């Protein structure tokens, strides 16, 4: 689960020697290790540890780097004992929302198809006290919200087990175990079915081709086939029967019902024929389509796991163990499981390690990669007081971090929670498909009976296999799978690109959007100043004055100083207008001495023999008036002695990738708008630079809302981009809202989608992928409908043999999943952070 490269210190005395969990009071499970007595927390750990030591592997305890994820012995019984209701136990996986409202992440076992999800959702939602339940098909993760005063978690878990599934509190390690177990069972079933099929075929072929076969040999072969088919039907096909039985008990019709009916009918008829010696046997068909169906399901299971991988990967980002500095500022270290950290702890994160929680850097200076969380590929530099996010990777040097948020409160947990919600919410088209699938099975059974009756009149000898073919060939599961498979894949891919989907409908709406409204100038600009223009006086060159300014501001962190300095890293990474001149100036050898800073006014210093003043006009050039008021820019003057030598115009900078990203959005046919509360000058400049023609400055929230409503009345579909925190009503007014979540609290962003990084190009990716997703959903639904419309009549007229039907059904649902998986290969648009050419405001020299 974890890969902490550090050695785990031998746990302190009160912790279990084997698993590191605290030893409960009164527990006495001694272990002899290197002439010392250690304590274990339970009999299980004691036995394991003693075995390890007795077999001479005791060095494991001195060399191990990670504590084992050994579940306590008692955990297996927790559910029965109702211990899951205890707050201490719930702490790790339950989020407390309000006084009595709780939300838990559970993982469900034995989910085989979309129908199981539906069944569980219905069943759990029907319990009194359960407020909502959402289950993700791809990951089998359930999110349950309940009112603790009306129902207990143990009752919910019990309700799930009542219908034949098992629910556990979610933890990534366990999710892997369950997957492995299910996969092994699937392989065993597949192997039995495959062997049975091959051998039965061996017996069947001679009976089709041989002309001189005696009756006793024929009978022997039938009996041999029967013996081989029994385990195939009773073991390999067992899940279909269980599923069908479950459906019938719940008075619903799932996809297992027709399959089980088909298999059962053909098998019983064959057994009858074998015993009484008249009629046909269908052992070859039965074993073959069981094998094919299982193959289809097996491949689908793997594909489904890939589709849901995004969430799993995020969850696994948090390491299991971390280094705590219990007596900070003393540097003594101890290894603890992340689950035992508390807010306020200090942890040491070495390079190459993953941050265990959200927090603030207390000591150290490093670069941290947040790529998994934001899609931002460049590492972000972190120093004292920087906020760091759990799950990001420390790359350069050790950091000491004070933990501020843990577990379910972290940004990563919010991202996972929102993504889960989005993936389990079905958009309109998906709900429609679900309803259709349920009706479809009913209709199918009716058709089967009708066709059976007709064929009984026409040709009784064919009735059985035609009925079986119809039952097997139809594929309601392709209908049910079409939407969730595509959505899960697309949202997972988008999250990795840095656009988090929090609502199920978001992708669908974004795909149809016609207008994109930017709610703030800040969504398009860096919020950082840069030099827009330099006016030199008295024959000075631009290079010279820039170098002078850079030298004067060398030591300052003021935004204006940074803009004037434009040191190389800053210039390359942040500025859309990195003036070549200024960058060279920064590297020049000029140094200023006797620098005196007057806050709010400017800076004074000596370079060479001369005294220079740089700053506000009234400070550096009290006798001059600045040139004409440039749009949104402010002026800084540079004076040599009392002689004014240059003016610098500073203004906010559009984001580096804004022009390219907006051009891409326009190319996608979107109309762009900019609504801003800022003054006209700044907004106009930004809009003109970026080629936005519809812009409005000085807009109040009411104005913005009215503007969006007006657009909507023209039948436009509006996507709105804002910062998601203080513009919630406006965002809510748009059909789909996108929040710039950079640095903001993801959980509070009341938006349908959240941009996790600062790449504006993500928007273009989002629109492109959303459209592609719609396209694929339509393809899938079209395929599922078309397939059934062709397959059913073909089977009804006797053109489909049962084994062909088995192939058809498996292929049809597999195709749907594979088609959806194409979305995970989506390549982001190659919009790099290419600086736009500086637009000259006016350029008198």
């Amino acid at each position, binding site marked *: 689960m974890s890969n902490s490269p550090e050695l785990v210190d031998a746990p302190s005395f009160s912790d279990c020697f084997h698993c590191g969990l605290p030893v409960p009071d009164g527990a006495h499970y001694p272990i002899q290790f290197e002439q010392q007595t250690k304590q274990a927390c339970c009999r299980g750990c004691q036995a394991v540890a003693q075995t390890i030591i007795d077999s001479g592997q005791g*060095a494991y305890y*001195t*060399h191990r780097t990670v504590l084992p994820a050994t579940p306590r012995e008692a955990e297996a019984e927790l559910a029965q004992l109702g211990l899951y209701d205890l707050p201490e136990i719930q702490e790790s996986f339950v989020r407390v929302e309000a006084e009595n409202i709780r939300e838990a992440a559970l993982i469900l076992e034995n989910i085989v198809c979309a129908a199981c999800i539906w069944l569980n959702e219905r069943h759990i939602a029907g319990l009194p006290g359960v407020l909502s339940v959402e289950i993700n098909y791809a990951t089998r993760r359930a999110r349950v919200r309940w009112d603790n005063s009306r129902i207990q978690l143990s009752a919910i878990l019990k309700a799930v087990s009542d219908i034949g599934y098992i629910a556990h509190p979610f933890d990534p390690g366990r999710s892997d175990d369950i997957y*492995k177990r299910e*996969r*092994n069972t699937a*392989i*065993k079933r597949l*192997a*039995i079915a495959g*062997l*049975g099929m091959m*051998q039965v075929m*061996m*017996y069947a072929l001679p009976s089709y081709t041989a002309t001189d*076969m*005696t009756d006793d*040999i024929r009978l*022997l*072969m039938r009996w*041999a086939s029967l*013996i*081989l088919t029994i*385990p195939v039907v009773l073991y390999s096909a067992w899940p279909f029967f269980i599923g069908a039985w479950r459906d019938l008990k719940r008075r619903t019709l799932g996809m297992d019902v027709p399959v089980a009916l088909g298999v059962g009918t053909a098998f019983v008829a064959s057994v009858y024929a074998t015993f009484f010696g008249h009629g046909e046997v269908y052992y070859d068909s039965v074993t073959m389509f069981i094998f094919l169906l299982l193959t289809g399901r097996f491949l689908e299971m793997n594909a489904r796991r890939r589709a849901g991988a995004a969430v799993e990967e995020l969850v696994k980002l948090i390491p299991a163990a971390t280094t705590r500095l219990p007596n900070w500022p003393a540097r003594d270290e101890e290894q603890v499981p992340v689950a035992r950290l508390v807010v306020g702890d200090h942890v040491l994160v070495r390079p190459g390690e993953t941050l265990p929680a959200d927090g603030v850097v207390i000591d150290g200076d490093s670069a941290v990669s947040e790529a998994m969380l934001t899609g931002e590929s460049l590492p972000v530099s972190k120093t004292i007081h920087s906020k760091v996010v759990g799950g990001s990777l420390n790359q350069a040097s050790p950091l000491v971090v004070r933990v501020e948020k843990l577990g379910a409160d972290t940004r990563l947990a919010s991202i996972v929670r929102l993504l889960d919600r989005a993936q389990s919410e079905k958009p309109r088209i998906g709900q429609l498909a679900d309803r259709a699938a349920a009706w479809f099975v009913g209709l199918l059974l009716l058709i089967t009976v009708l066709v059976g009756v007709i064929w009984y009149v026409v040709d009784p000898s064919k009735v059985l296999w035609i009925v079986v073919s119809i039952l097997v060939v139809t594929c309601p599961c392709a209908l049910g799978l079409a939407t969730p498979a595509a959505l899960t894949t697309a949202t997972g891919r988008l999250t990795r690109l840095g656009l988090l989907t929090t609502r199920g409908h978001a992708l669908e709406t974004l795909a149809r959007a016609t207008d994109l409204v930017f709610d703030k100038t800040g969504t398009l600009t860096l919020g950082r100043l840069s030099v827009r223009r330099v006016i030199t006086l008295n024959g000075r060159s631009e290079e010279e004055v820039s170098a002078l300014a850079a030298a004067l501001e060398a030591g300052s962190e003021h935004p204006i100083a940074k803009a004037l300095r434009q040191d190389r890293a800053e210039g390359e990474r942040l500025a859309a207008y990195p003036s070549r001149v200024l960058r060279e100036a920064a590297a020049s050898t000029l140094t200023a001495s006797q620098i005196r800073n007057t806050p709010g006014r400017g800076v004074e210093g000596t370079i060479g023999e001369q005294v220079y003043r740089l700053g506000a006009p009234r400070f550096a050039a009290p006798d001059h008036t600045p040139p004409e008021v440039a749009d949104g820019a402010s002026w800084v003057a540079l004076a040599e002695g009392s002689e004014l030598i240059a003016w610098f115009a500073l203004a906010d900078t559009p984001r580096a990738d804004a022009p390219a990203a907006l051009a891409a959005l326009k190319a996608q046919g979107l109309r762009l708008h900019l609504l801003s509360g800022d003054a006209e000058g700044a907004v106009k400049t930004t809009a003109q630079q970026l080629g936005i023609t519809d812009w409005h400055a000085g807009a109040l929230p009411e104005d913005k809302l009215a503007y969006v409503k007006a657009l909507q009345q023209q039948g436009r579909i509006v996507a709105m981009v804002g910062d998601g925190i203080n513009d919630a009503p406006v965002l809510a007014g748009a059909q789909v809202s996108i929040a710039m979540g950079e640095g903001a609290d993801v959980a509070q962003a009341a938006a349908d989608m959240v941009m996790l990084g600062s790449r504006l190009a993500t928007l273009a990716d989002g629109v492109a992928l959303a459209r592609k997703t719609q396209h694929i959903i339509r393809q899938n639904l079209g395929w599922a409908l078309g397939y059934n419309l062709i397959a059913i009549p073909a089977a009804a007229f006797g053109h489909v043999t049962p084994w062909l039907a088995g192939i058809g059904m498996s292929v049809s649902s597999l195709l749907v999943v594979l088609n959806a998986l194409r979305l995970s290969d989506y390549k982001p648009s190659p919009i790099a952070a290419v600086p736009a050419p500086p637009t000259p405001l006016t350029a008198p020299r």
Partner: protein
Amino acid sequence: MDILILLIPLSLAIVGVIAWIMLWATKSGQFDDLEGPAHSVIMDDDTPHPPRDTPQDKPTPLP
């Protein structure tokens, strides 16, 4: 054709043995990782082996 009376039960027995082998293989983890072993074969083993003729260092006391 009489030989079939022997061969058919024999084939059943063989299938049974193969099935048992398959189940054993699954249980013992032969299918747990279908991709890793393919790569591990071509991975260079760069860990230096101690020369055969020099005696192994005594295990240092563990810290």
